[in-house]
């Protein structure tokens, strides 16, 4: 590639070469059929979430009491709930909420977790002890219980559920990046970077962090799946979204009284949760294989 473009400015050429690196990963990702299925599922939900207002047949809160608890039909593909609202429309709008919670909470966990993990791994000694014990304490609680406790303190709302989910996932990322930093800082290129007089901060953020990104991306994808489940669980318990927000967990909780009469009210939100989680998990597994350095030559 470099031979083809000797006259390019160095920055563009470097960016092009990095793009090649991702192309390699994409090629090996593509070979994994299940991972591609996962990616397609995720893309479908992302598409639904982005274009929700355009593609949904009805709004999220159009109550038609005459049409309550109707089974799936050509008019309401997935039936209606106890207020006569179209379940398909609510699920599509729900995708917005679940994906939003999933992405934002995981990004929050990654930022905080990476920062703490890098400090712990690179500086070691008392910094490491302090941060690692803090993680240990957090991991000692069952994560769901901790999330419930945090929401109980902050007050139930979708935003607070998101914050709680972000907090409980911090130690997972922190530990992951700490272990990665511990192994990378032993690498000879880090000593070599020090030997050319590089500053600690630059070594941390320009050499150690990018080299520990692959497992973070994989773990992040898988964590989005768990975050979606956790958001649904908090919603189910009434600690997440407020009505009439079409949050999937909340929809499950609202429909549990009609389980016998109208099983579709519960079935379809459940399927939606399952499919997104499955999609992210398949994609995460595929990414793990694609980004595994041992697979490269």
């Amino acid at each position, binding site marked *: *590639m*470099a*031979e083809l*473009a*000797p006259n390019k400015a*160095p920055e563009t*050429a*470097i960016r*092009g*070469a990095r793009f090649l*690196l991702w192309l390699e990963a994409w090629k090996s990702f593509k070979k994994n059929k299940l991972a591609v299925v996962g990616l397609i599922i995720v893309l479908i939900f992302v598409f639904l979430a982005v274009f929700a207002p355009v593609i949904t047949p009805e709004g999220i809160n159009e109550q038609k009491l005459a049409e309550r608890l109707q089974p799936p039909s050509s008019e309401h593909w997935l039936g209606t709930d106890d207020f006569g609202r179209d379940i398909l429309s609510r699920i599509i709008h729900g995708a917005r909420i679940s994906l939003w919670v999933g992405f934002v909470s995981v990004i929050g966990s990654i930022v905080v977790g990476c920062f703490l993990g890098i400090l712990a791994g690179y500086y*070691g*000694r008392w910094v490491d002890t302090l941060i690692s014990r803090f993680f240990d304490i957090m991991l000692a609680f069952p994560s769901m219980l901790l999330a419930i406790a945090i929401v109980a303190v902050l007050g139930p709302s979708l935003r607070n559920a998101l914050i709680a989910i972000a907090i409980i996932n911090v130690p997972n990322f922190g530990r992951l990046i700490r272990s990665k930093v511990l192994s990378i800082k032993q*690498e*000879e*290129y880090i*000593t*070599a*970077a*020090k*030997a*050319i*007089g*590089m*500053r600690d901060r630059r070594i941390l953020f320009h*050499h150690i962090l*990018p*080299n520990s990104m692959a497992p973070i991306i994989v773990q992040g994808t898988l964590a989005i799946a768990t975050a979606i489940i956790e958001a649904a669980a908090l919603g189910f318990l009434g600690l997440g979204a407020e009505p009439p927000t079409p949050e999937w967990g909340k929809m499950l909780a609202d429909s549990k009284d009609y389980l016998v009469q109208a099983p579709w009210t519960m079935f379809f939100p459940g399927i939606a949760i399952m499919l997104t989680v499955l999609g992210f998990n398949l994609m995460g597994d595929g990414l793990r294989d694609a980004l595994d350095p041992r697979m*490269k*030559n």
Partner: protein
Amino acid sequence: MSESSVLQVNGLKTSFFMDKTEVPAVDHVDFDLKQGEIIAIVGESGCGKSVTSLSIMGLVPHPPGKVVGGEVFFNDEDLLKVSESKMRDIRGNEIAMIFQEPMTSLNPLFTIGNQITEAILIHRKWSKKQAKAKAIEYLKLVGLPRAEALMNEYPHQLSGGMRQRVMIAMAMVCEPKVLIADEPTTALDVTIQSQILALMKRLNQKLNTSIILITHDLGVVSEICERVIVMYAGKIVEEADVKTIFEHPEHPYTKGLIQSVPDIRNKKERLYSIPGNVPIPGSIKKGCRFADRCEFVMDRCREKTPELISIEGDHKVRCFLHQESEEQN
């Protein structure tokens, strides 16, 4: 500090602290390096060669390691006492280092060009364009073909020998006064080894850079070095110019090392090897550290530690065999 020396090491002592016990890895090492000189530090694995070089650079992994004593004079300053930010200015700029494993000494995520220009821009307030031109100039200087194209390539696209050349280019690009090469050819095959050595010799002559070559390979030593320091278990046991070391080695350890080099003119059934291993650092409390492996061991070797004495001009040796002969005279 004598007129022509660029680097002077006095009584350097570096220890590792394991479970509160102090294990000296480098024990009172003294030497000086003259302008434009190539010296070799030779010894088996684990005898303190690499720790010596890391101590000079201030890069001893801490914890558990720590420089506990001595002085390293460079430009009339003791490097062991200067601030970390001052030390950063010296590293790479005035004293550079290259490492044993060219396969892992480059960051796999960045291009060659990126890494060399970064090395320049740390120490020089140049524009990116200037730095890039300089990087290409040095890639050419170390004998790499198609330097411009290489700038955009990743380390995994290069062979070991090419990567070591890149490392040398990166180390030399700020024109340091001293280059420390820690086993630069150990991981390379023989033909590449001699090319890399020739390159270092050429750079030494062209840029007048002093080189400390750390190696366990006496073949490498004989090829390019002027003076040799033989280390054993953290101490210097013999020091002389390269000719003397090969023709009249005086310390039993040096003799053993030289005998262990295969010689094509003199095919023996079995290659000589020094019996035993380097003692675990800190395990020998008194006496000569080589005593247990020495064929000429005497009672006093186990009692007292011999001093490093000069036996003829610059030829110094740490052995009672020679102290005795001096005392008898």
